[in-house]
């Protein structure tokens, strides 16, 4: 599972147990109180783990906030970086001692490099940056993490927070673009593109138009790339004409379809265009119920059969809409009772 154990054995030779340290004789170690006579989810801690945590409990019990207690939290974190209590106590100590936060930032950088998929380490970094009010290292730091894992959710979350809080948008679109040149399927990068534009210039008409051109070019290269299609749909949320009235997009889709391409995302978008026209009672010879039904059938049977039930559902929903006066969903339960019951019916 975790990587705590590797770390534990690295320095095993030079390691001195807290219970054998002269300068810790004044602290009473506190054992974990697990309750009953039988073990429950009891972890076979190594002697080192038990020693460190016994002393940590001892220190927390008397509320000691000192340099040696700070060092002890680092040992505890090295054994389990996901222990939020230790991190919280460490922050209490940092505050009390008015510690050098630049040094703390370097420390947390190292910890994150070892444990980059953990909520606590990233939260700690964020708090330290907030205390320091210095965001100058955040873009470079997250970029370094993203080199190894371009889709690390925590890294992106931290990066977005720093960008938004400290106004670091400059150069971000270029960075995103370089990530997309590396991997056109990097959905985190597509999402970041949307984030940057949404929080800066906004999806005004000419931005939508330019972005549509950008994404269509990417789709043309890899028509099976869901990320790009999703981004296109995201852009069209801001198109005043809706999904089905952007001539660049409709022309592109029709040409692609005519060329014989059967990307499920292409067919799905045309279904959505038909759906929109039907909802707006603006059917025409291209985007109508007949075409929607045919495409749903094609998706359900040959192009995207794993989702056959969904495409049958879509076909029925659109047909109903076409025949329904209001054009709105006729039904839909919103009670938790219906949802609860739905999980509890086996067809035996």
């Amino acid at each position, binding site marked *: 599972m975790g990587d705590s154990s590797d770390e534990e054995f690295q320095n095993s030779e030079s390691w001195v147990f807290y219970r054998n340290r002269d300068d810790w004789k004044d602290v009473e170690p506190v054992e974990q109180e*697990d*309750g009953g006579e039988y073990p429950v989810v009891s972890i076979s801690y190594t002697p080192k783990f038990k020693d460190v945590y016994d002393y940590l409990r001892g220190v927390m019990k008397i509320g000691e906030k000192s340099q040696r207690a700070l060092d002890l939290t680092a040992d505890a974190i090295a054994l389990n970086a996901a222990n*939020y209590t230790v991190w919280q106590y460490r922050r209490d100590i940092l505050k009390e001692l008015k510690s050098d936060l630049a040094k703390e930032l370097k420390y947390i950088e190292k910890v994150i490099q070892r444990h980059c998929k953990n*909520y606590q380490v990233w939260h700690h970094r964020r708090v330290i940056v907030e205390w320091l009010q210095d965001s100058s290292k955040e873009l470079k730091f997250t970029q370094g993490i993203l080199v190894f894992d371009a889709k690390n959710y925590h890294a992106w*979350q931290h990066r977005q927070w720093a960008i938004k809080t400290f106004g670091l948008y400059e150069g971000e679109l270029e960075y995103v673009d370089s990530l997309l040149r590396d*991997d056109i399927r990097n*959905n985190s990068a597509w999402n970041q593109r949307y984030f940057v534009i949404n929080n800066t210039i906004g999806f005004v008409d000419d931005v939508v138009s330019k972005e549509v051109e950008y994404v269509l070019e990417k789709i043309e290269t890899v028509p099976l790339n869901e990320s790009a299609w999703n981004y296109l749909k995201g852009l069209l949320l801001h198109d005043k004409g809706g999904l089905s009235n952007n001539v660049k997009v409709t022309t592109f889709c029709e040409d692609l379809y005519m060329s014989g391409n059967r990307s499920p995302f292409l067919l799905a978008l045309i279904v959505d265009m038909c759906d929109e026209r039907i909802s707006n009672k603006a059917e025409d010879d291209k985007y109508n119920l007949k075409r929607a039904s045919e495409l749903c059938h094609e998706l359900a049977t040959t192009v995207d059969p794993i989702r056959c039930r969904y495409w049958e559902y879509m076909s029925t929903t659109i047909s109903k809409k076409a025949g329904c006066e209001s054009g709105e969903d006729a039904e839909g339960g919103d009670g938790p009772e219906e949802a609860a019951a739905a999980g509890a019916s086996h067809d035996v």
Partner: protein
Amino acid sequence: MMANMRPFRDLVANQYDEENNKTHSSKEQIDVEKSVLNMYESAHMKITLNRNLPRLATNAHMDFIRDGLTQLPHSYSCLDASRTWLCYWSLHSMSLLTDISKTWPLNKEESMIVQFLSKCQHPSGGFGGGPGQYPHLATTYAAVNALCIIGTQEAYDIINRKTLKEFLYSVRAPNGAFRMHLDGEIDVRGVYCALSIATLTGIYSEKLFDGTAEWVVSCQTYEGGFSGCPGLEAHGGYTFCAIAVLTILKRPKLCDLHSLLRWLVNKQMKLEGGFQGRTNKLVDGCYSFWLACSVLLAGVALGEKKMLFNQTALQEYIMVCCQYNSGGLLDKPGKRPDLYHTCYTLSGLSLTQTNSDYIGIPFYLGFINPLYNISYEKVEIMKTYFKDTKDETL
């Protein structure tokens, strides 16, 4: 009735098309497909010899879970701050595999778990991940769920609802979101855990969740799924939290259900049959619950009775690719089993059996309440108990 597995040649035909554009994402996907295809190939060979395959190795899984509920190797040290989770994952997995009439866990063992969880309860309210640890919303959620599954009066009565309520208020942000712990991070998990805890223990109030639905909706992304915080990428785990919250609050229509449903169904992998958690990421057994359950909830909100994902294909993935030989379930072939994946693949398997055909030997898992991922009856019993329990101090 018995369903046929998808023919092997269809799976081969579903292999990833790189479209002459090799990238890191496509390489990883192709590697996974290779290992998954190997599993399917050998499964299909075995099935020609034994029509009763694939089967769920119930006994081996039970042993794996039971071991975990008592003693875990030191490699689990990284979950030392998640021990209430270990209780919930084990108990829920066992309840899915066990007939309610059967006698495990025994009363005495249940009582030991209750005593352990009471040690995790913090004097200031809520539960920590282990004895003496600070309270945290996720570990409190897990503790309450575990106590709900045990379902005895002893279990219910250890919950200090007065301090629990104070804890929930202490982590509530002014906009209706929730921090995971005091001065901790904010994301959609916090809201879901808080709401689940509050509704199960009867301390829900409109005031506590004022603004919550609106904040959750602000996490729906242009893709249709939900992210952990506004602006981030749509993600399966957060999406479950979000749609479950909106359903419990009776406001699912506040979000765009159509784009949500589209995103959700697209997360089912055409070859593997399991779900990915984000667009262009890899399949993972745990999403068998997070994603499939979200499809169910979105479907219910749209008035659809049928499950709109491919139940047979998901069964195939779980049965063929997620079972470890010596017990326990896992993320994907090549990974080790653990209690987290065991819990959520089995929960997902339960959803594939709802109004559906089965593959292999029929083995029906317990029913779940999809909002809490606890057995249907246990949720009702706990809710009723606290509804009827007058607590003057609340």
